[in-house]
């Protein structure tokens, strides 16, 4: 299998991708949404066309609002972000957003998150991502427990974990760039997308590993001696079409979701798209090559 043969090259490619993602996060950072920071998010639409941002700011300032930010959305909408509003500010908002009797604002979405809920969601996001990673490690170690030669089932689990870290790094890096250039924010849906990518990617990795497991069993049955590199390479070959096809069907549906789906899930679909491409790539070009490499490493260690 060409990928297993040239695994050093692929390790380099993977390294570059991960490095680029990390740099993207380091340079641009992730913009946390009100879900996590607490505060107020208002979506407002102007059926007769929206006013200029400066006019709107003037109206808000004169009504005593401060420390907010305005962003245009869609054709007639604005998104307003601010720290938590007082009840009086909340009630007066609709009037302050309207200018005169001609540009009347309609608030289509109003979200206000208190600080404790924000903290809680932040913690929950970290806990659940860690929990998914841990459970998957344990599950793979368990599912492959009967395969201990030539590498122990824990190695399969750890490699799946490394693969998953790659799959998280790529969409996070992508999202940092998206946040910088298009103002996208990390919200609970983003965390959901990351968790879904984890589930999907490990799905892929397990299918390849399962084939390695089967090939090893067949070799043992037939008493065939074969370098592990070839066994694993064959497994990759055998599952390659399936990995690509399944990802394609999912990518089709995600593209449709991105272009036709609800506006609220557009960033979500995009994150998933990137994550699933990363996941498919990593289960083909990272997981099995790593498995082969670790087998060599363990063999040398024994000598």
């Amino acid at each position, binding site marked *: 299998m060409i990928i297993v043969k040239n695994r050093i090259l692929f390790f380099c490619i993977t390294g570059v991708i991960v490095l680029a993602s990390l740099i993207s996060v380091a340079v641009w950072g992730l913009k946390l949404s009100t879900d996590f920071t607490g505060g107020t998010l208002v*979506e407002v639409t102007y059926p007769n066309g929206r006013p200029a941002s400066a006019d709107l700011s003037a109206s808000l300032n004169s009504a005593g609002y401060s420390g907010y930010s305005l962003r245009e959305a869609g054709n007639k909408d604005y998104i307003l972000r601010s720290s938590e509003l007082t*009840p009086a500010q*909340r*009630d007066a908002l609709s009037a302050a957003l309207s200018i005169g009797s001609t540009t009347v604002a*309609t*608030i*289509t*979405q*109003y*979200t*206000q*998150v*208190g600080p*404790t*809920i924000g*903290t*809680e969601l932040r*913690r*929950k996001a970290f*806990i659940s991502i860690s*929990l*998914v990673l841990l*459970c*998957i490690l344990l*599950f793979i170690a368990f*599912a492959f427990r009967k395969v201990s030669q030539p590498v122990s089932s824990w190695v399969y689990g750890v490699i799946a974990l490394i693969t998953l870290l790659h799959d998280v790094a790529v969409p996070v890096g992508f999202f940092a760039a998206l946040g910088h250039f298009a103002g996208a924010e990390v919200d*609970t*849906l983003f*965390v*959901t997308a990351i*968790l*879904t990518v984890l*589930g999907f990617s*490990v*799905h892929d990795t*397990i*299918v390849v590993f*399962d*084939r390695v497991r*089967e090939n090893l069993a067949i070799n043992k049955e037939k008493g065939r001696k074969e370098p592990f590199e070839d066994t694993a390479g064959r497994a990759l070959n*055998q*599952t390659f079409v*399936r990995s690509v*096809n*399944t990802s*394609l*069907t*999912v990518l*089709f*549906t*995600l593209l*449709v*979701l991105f272009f*036709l*789906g*609800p*506006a*609220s*899930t557009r960033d*979500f679909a995009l994150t998933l798209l990137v994550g699933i491409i990363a996941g498919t790539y990593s289960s083909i070009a990272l997981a099995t090559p790593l498995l082969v490499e670790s087998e060599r490493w363990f063999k040398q260690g024994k000598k």
Partner: protein
Amino acid sequence: MAAVLVLLAGVGIGYFAYWSEGHNFRPFKLGLDLSGGTQLVYKADLSAIPGADAADSLAALRDTIERRVNLFGVSEPLVQTEHVSAAISGAAEDRLIIELPGVTDTQKAIALIGQTPVLEFRMLKPGADPSKATASTTVDEMFDPAIITGKDLSSAELQFQGQGVSEPVVVLHFNSHGAAVFADVTKQNVGKVFGIFLDGSLIEAPVIREAIPDGTAVISGNFTAESAKELARNLNYGALPVPIELQYTQTVSGTLGAQAVQNGIMAALWGVAAVIFFMLLWYRLPGLIAGVALLIYIVVTLALFQLIPVTMTAAGIAAFILSVGMAVDANVLIFERMKEEMRSGKHISEAIKDGFARAWPSIRDSNISSMITAVILFWFGTSLIKGFALVFGLGVLVSMLTAITVSRTFLIALGIHSKTKLAHFLFGSGTRL
């Protein structure tokens, strides 16, 4: 024969899903982000409640709010309590989650809840003197935890008391529990002072002159006839046992939701079409069967969404569309395996059988890992994300079943034993004779 039955069952379920939507028997339940409405999350402040009464007070809190919400004619409101442990939010917290479908005016929604009075009776601590209290003295420093709260109230009425210029007062009638507690407390504390609190502020602090066994109490705190009447009315709708504080507000307008539903349905239709088209192109006859299996998967899940019922949110629709893409995965695995078996020279019928058997461990293990993710997602989620997790988890489970049973039934039912060129063309794209 079996295949015909499966097909009929599929059509039947599909018809049911369609019929029940049309006849409002069990229509799809839309989340607030799709139907439009308001979600409010309050923190319940239990600090003045003795630990043993906490559960009771929360239940009373929920009932009172629910009654209040129903009073205003909100259809299908949801009121529930939630306990958050200290490990997750830093400090343990009890919350009240209120969902008001159709109420798209945040101000009105908050006002609706905010009118509910909080009623507390608390004993003055020995040695404490309310008249000497400074601005920095907290209520908790002066008063013991609440002995009687809104949950002990059964009704309230407006009366006029006193000679000459009669003063409006509000008379409280306790329920049996409240009456018993009040009788007990007044008996044991003759000569002491207790405080009556409304919405957290002290209304009056009368001295107990004698035991009050009949379960009534009078509040006479400088009311006008109008304000006393309003208080009595509000108390009659129920008083809260503990103060609540607004933590989270979300309002989505109905038009935004309707747009999301429309887009979601369009995306789902095109998504399904794209997947079926791809499967047909790549796998030919088995691809067609996978398409049928996918359609059956779709009607089964939709019927389940109605029956359970699963609340559909924008994230839920996304999960469903995603699950359509993933649902064919089991079929892809099986078909690839079948092709492989055919390449190794096996007969088609044998290849079908072995293909299924060999693909099974992969399907099982990979789906278990997806289920793990779904369960954790469900735990992570706010109500919007819970919708996603539930749909995703159900999708994984149902798709595994339909992909295996339905496709298998059809493939075997077709009963292709021949090694003709046609059969080979239909099954084995990419394999040679």
